[in-house]
């Protein structure tokens, strides 16, 4: 046999980056953020415009269905999307920087509002339980909430520095538990309403002077009629926070991508309408108005549990379940705020608008610790400044939510015109076809609503406007200065040593150590070289069954003369991997990317295919040699490496190019 090993080094891209999740898990990740607003949105809205709040919370939840539609179209256009990417494509970098600054404000506030709310719910429960245990401690609710919020933030600060991955399994368990609690609560609340009867809450919002903000200085801007509705809608819109998470999680959704996205979106919508919308509505029907505004203002669902029909012990039991589910969900949202802001800031850093100083990787854990530190310190400062005042946090919160939704929707409308030739698997409904363009009447209507609410909130929410503008401008300035600094040093840029870790690469001495990681029945080897010529990979990803097929993507770099190891991958080599990962994400199918240094790419193919027991080798056509020569070389390498004592397994060798393919059998 041939004595000379053909590989110098084998690099394997960790599949952790390429593991895909079901629509249930995707929906649960979004819901841990989006759904958590059920615990505070109602109380905050009640505090702003009185007993009409359940109508508006329900209205916002129904509106979320429309926003989910806009996000669905944007996800289908950009696998790695989100507000920043969508706005950049539509309106350029300046607007993208503005929108992402607002989004960071949203993410940064998600942590404090969630952790403080969790603390308030827990504090309320403890104040009910401790007297039963004859413990006469009295801790002010807000002080307890602040301490709890700081501890939770510090915990997730540490966890994110250590790089502990957010587990989709945990999110699913939390949402499953919350769903059980919600079903119990809705059923019990339904029985209570049935027994007691009900009076529908008034539809007319009655604003506090604080909730009117600067509009008190404009006598013509009366908080009645349509203007009143827009004002109240603006005060309720914080319940929409968390939709951006859908754009972040889309890349992880498994094949069939579009079908699973649709299922996830429907699940999120139904859950939100029932959990946030219906439970808030039921709270208003069951809890006396003075208690909603007072005792239960910052823990509305606890109030619902305690005001149900039944003996006290059973209602207290229900409160325990509500608080437990709330704490789990809200604490999950704190983690999402870390992961989300870290992810978004890393994304913009990739685009050169955040200075490399921020991207420095932690020596031990390989995480972007400076970004995480920045987020954590900002969140703790906000918690301390708020002093546990959930209404203050709530007032500030909607700024980022509204602006990012407005930018996203406006961008999607612009993209209908700018990318009119791009195929879309699904379009937001209500369009009028004019030439090649589907004029998005439906999205324009949504934009009008968002603009009206955004404009009104600028006037009514002083804290949000001042805080949001200051925060957004600060981040915008950081992005702008970073971009200029990065432009200056672009010519002097040298690849840093951290790149391998960023790509999650690991070195192996031999291909056989990778083989045990291949566990599926069928194995297809897809050699790749040019990131712009992955048609054959797309063909495989389109047809392969992810449950039964391991797709091994092999990139071989020619290294003349087999020496000892020590080779490293160049940026061009990594570009190939990035393109492969992006394509795998687009199809939602797992691939096993392997990079080897070799004398001859055909030997590498044959060696990997034989070691892995592949059923197929699918190549793209080479412009320099042509399909026949490729197959001839592969056949020779195949024969040379074949062990005569091992029974031959039929292996198909394919060369795929535009509209054609050649298929032969290797023997």
């Amino acid at each position, binding site marked *: *046999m041939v004595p000379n090993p053909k590989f110098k080094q084998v690099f394997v891209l960790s599949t952790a980056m390429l593991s895909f999740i079901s629509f249930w898990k995707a929906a649960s990740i979004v819901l841990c953020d989006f759904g958590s607003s059920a615990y505070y949105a109602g109380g905050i809205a009640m505090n702003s415009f009185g007993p009409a709040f359940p109508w508006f919370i329900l209205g916002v939840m129904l509106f979320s269905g429309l926003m989910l539609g806009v996000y669905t179209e944007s996800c289908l256009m950009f696998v790695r999307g989100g507000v920043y990417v969508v706005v950049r494509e539509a309106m350029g970098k300046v607007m993208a920087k503005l929108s992402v600054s607002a989004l960071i404000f949203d993410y940064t506030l998600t942590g404090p509002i969630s952790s403080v709310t969790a603390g308030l719910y827990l504090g309320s429960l403890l104040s009910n339980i401790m007297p039963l245990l004859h413990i006469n401690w009295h801790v002010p609710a807000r002080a307890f909430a602040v301490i709890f919020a700081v501890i939770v933030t510090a915990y997730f600060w540490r966890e994110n520095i250590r790089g502990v991955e957010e587990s989709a399994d945990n999110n699913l368990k939390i949402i499953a538990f919350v769903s059980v609690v919600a079903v119990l609560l809705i059923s019990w609340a339904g029985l209570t309403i049935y027994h007691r009867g009900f009076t529908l809450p008034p539809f007319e919002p009655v604003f506090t002077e604080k909730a009117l903000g600067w509009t008190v200085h404009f006598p013509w801007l009366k908080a009645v009629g349509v203007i009143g509705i827009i004002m109240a809608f603006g005060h309720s819109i914080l319940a929409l926070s968390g939709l951006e998470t859908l754009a972040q999680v889309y890349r992880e959704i498994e094949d069939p991508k579009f079908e699973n996205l649709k299922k996830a979106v429907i699940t999120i919508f139904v859950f939100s309408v029932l959990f946030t919308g219906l439970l808030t509505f039921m709270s208003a029907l069951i809890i006396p108005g003075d208690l909603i505004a007072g005792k239960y203002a910052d823990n509305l669902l606890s109030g619902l549990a305690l005001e149900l029909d039944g003996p006290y012990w059973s209602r207290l039991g229900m409160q325990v379940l509500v608080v437990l589910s709330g704490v789990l969900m809200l604490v999950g949202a704190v983690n999402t705020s870390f992961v989300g802001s870290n992810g978004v800031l890393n994304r913009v850093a990739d685009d050169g608008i955040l200075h490399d100083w921020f991207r420095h990787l932690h020596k031990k854990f390989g995480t972007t610790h400076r970004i995480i530190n920045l987020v954590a310190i900002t969140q703790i400062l906000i918690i301390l400044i708020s002093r546990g005042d959930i209404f203050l946090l709530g007032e500030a919160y909607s700024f980022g939510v509204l602006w990012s939704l407005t930018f996203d929707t406006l961008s999607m409308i612009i993209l209908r015109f700018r990318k009119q030739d791009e195929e879309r698997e699904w379009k937001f409904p209500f369009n009028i076809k004019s030439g090649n363009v589907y004029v998005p009447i439906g999205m324009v209507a949504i934009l009008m609503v968002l603009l009206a609410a955004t404009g009104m909130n600028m006037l009514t929410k002083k804290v949000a406007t001042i805080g949001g503008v200051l925060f957004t401008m600060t981040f915008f300035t950081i992005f702008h200065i970073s971009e200029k600094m990065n432009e200056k040093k672009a010519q002097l840029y040298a690849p840093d040593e951290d790149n391998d870790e960023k790509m999650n690469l690991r070195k192996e001495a031999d291909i056989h150590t990778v083989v045990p990681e291949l566990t599926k029945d069928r194995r297809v080897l897809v050699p790749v070289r040019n990131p712009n010529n992955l048609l054959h990979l797309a063909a495989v990803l389109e047809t392969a069954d992810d449950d039964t097929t391991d797709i091994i993507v092999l990139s071989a770099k020619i290294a003349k003369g087999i020496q000892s190891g020590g080779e490293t991958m160049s940026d061009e080599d990594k570009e190939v991997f990035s393109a492969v990962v992006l394509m795998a994400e687009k199809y939602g199918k797992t691939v096993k990317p392997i990079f080897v240094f070799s*004398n001859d790419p055909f030997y590498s193919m044959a060696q990997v295919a034989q070691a892995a027991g592949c059923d197929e080798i699918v190549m793209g056509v080479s412009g320099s040699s042509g399909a026949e020569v490729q197959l001839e*070389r592969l*056949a020779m390498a195949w024969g*040379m490496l074949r062990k005569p004592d091992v029974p031959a397994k039929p292996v198909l060798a394919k060369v795929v190019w535009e509209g054609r393919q050649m298929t032969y059998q*290797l023997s």
Partner: protein
Amino acid sequence: MIRQSDGVSLSTIINPENVFFLEGKPSKEEAVLQLTEKMLPRVAAIISRKALFGRVAEVEKLNQVLESGFYIPHAKFPELDGFHAVLGIIPEGFVDPATGLRVKALLLLLSPHRPDFFQRHLNVLSLLSQTFQPELIEKLAVLKDPAAAAALVTGK
């Protein structure tokens, strides 16, 4: 297109009449030229000298020496109906300038240029590269007799 029944046997390609021991220390190009000369009488009735030498020289640029030290210059001609091969054995060998490998055995293979024959063409290339492993090449290099060489290769 896949043809399952395209198995080939080396004995149909290699026989004592088409095995040659090349004398001296020819370069890679000289060795290929010598084998092409040996091939010419076998295909002269259907392929002109100019066409044969021209095509072999053309495809030779694309062919590569195998890691085993075996070299298979090969070309396809639409005029052919079957395989034609000549095996050259060079006891002292030559060093391939591209890879630095010492080559002591090379086989010039001509195949029909037809889509329905391509599967068999691949099978032959695979079989040849599987057969001509370093151990066999070393054994061939010490032989003197074409019949013995053919027998060693074909196992008959």
